[in-house]
């Protein structure tokens, strides 16, 4: 996965090969851009407490909560660490833990 940096030209198409009109042909290509490194704290799910109410899933702005069979999990590739999930969880199954890299 390459970060999109405005200054580097590496791997970017020229005017002859770009689809016309600036059209983007690949739906959901943003999935290639992992926003997980934005975080300064990360949510940890206590599976024992999670009752699968899915409130964290519906409120997450980044679709970073994964619906598993009986509990939820966090997709750390995209989670920005906003903490909404921990805030809304009715059983306090999610805690925000500071993350250092």
């Amino acid at each position: 996965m390459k970060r999109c940096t405005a200054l580097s030209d590496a791997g970017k198409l020229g005017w002859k090969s770009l689809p016309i009109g600036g059209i983007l042909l690949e739906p959901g290509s943003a999935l290639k851009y992992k926003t997980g490194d934005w975080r300064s704290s990360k949510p940890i799910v206590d599976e024992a407490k999670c009752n699968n109410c899915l409130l964290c899933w519906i409120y997450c702005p980044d679709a970073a909560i994964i619906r598993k069979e009986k509990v939820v999990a966090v997709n750390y590739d995209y989670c920005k660490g906003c903490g909404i999930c921990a805030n809304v969880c009715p059983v306090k199954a999610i805690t925000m833990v500071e993350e250092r890299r």
Partner: protein
Amino acid sequence: MVTLKELTKEELFTSGHRLCEGCGEGTIVRMTMKALRGATIITNATGCLEVASTIYPYTSWRIPWVHVAFENAAAVASGIEAAYKALARRNAWDRHVDVIAIAGDGGTFDIGIQALSGALEREHDFLYICLDNEAYMNTGIQRSGATPHGAATTTSPAGTKIPGKPEFKKDLIGICAAHGIKYAATASPFYWNDYITKVRKGLEVEGPAVIHVFSPCTPGMRIEASRSIELARLAVQTRYWPVYEVEKGKYKLNIKVAQPKPVVDFLKIQGRFRHLFEPQFQHELDTIQRWVDENWKRITELCGES
């Protein structure tokens, strides 16, 4: 009414967008995508959502999506809706396509009001969703016609003489209802079921429908990112943001607030109102409470609630 488990797992608005941590728009758009009923095209005005979800060559959208300019989401939607009618007429298209125009408060209340009014008057079959974060957030938090009284923005700063925006918020749904459209509603992302139901209702209505949804903004309202949805709940529970719908001119209150919290509960967790808690401006808190009370009374009377 649906349960969360019944909602589709499919994400037509993917991760990887560059909206801020805790952005209400991200949540609201994800919810909107859960309410779709078939082929859908989005027209999106310039703003946070548009800019953050489509930075070339990345796009978070997995349905057809068009951005043209700031003030014309409704006009572009009108053209798309008209085109599909014409294509069907000459047998080049055979399915219904839902068209949803999404714009912020800037692109709706101010620069976009003309295009919206025209589209409503012409009765195009489309749904218009206004994501209201109460200022021009994408360009750095400047005031709009949707900015509430007393809020600090960069063009209505909390100064020593003037404490934030002097004017009051426009009544968008009142304006839309005055066009005689079949469906207009307010919503808050905390009440996900109400919002998703309204989106589906708006799509099903034949003709224009408008939904006005409160969209918390982490940097612009100066809140902790984690309290975004909590703020959307407080907005309703303090009666600051009445949640109601207008069907063919008939008002109906959707979320009753029998024991409202005082509006300061909503204001005090937002940095954009912090200056109002200083001694010389505290009377503004009363002004805002009065506005909330009068607005609530007006809406509930229209809804036939005592």
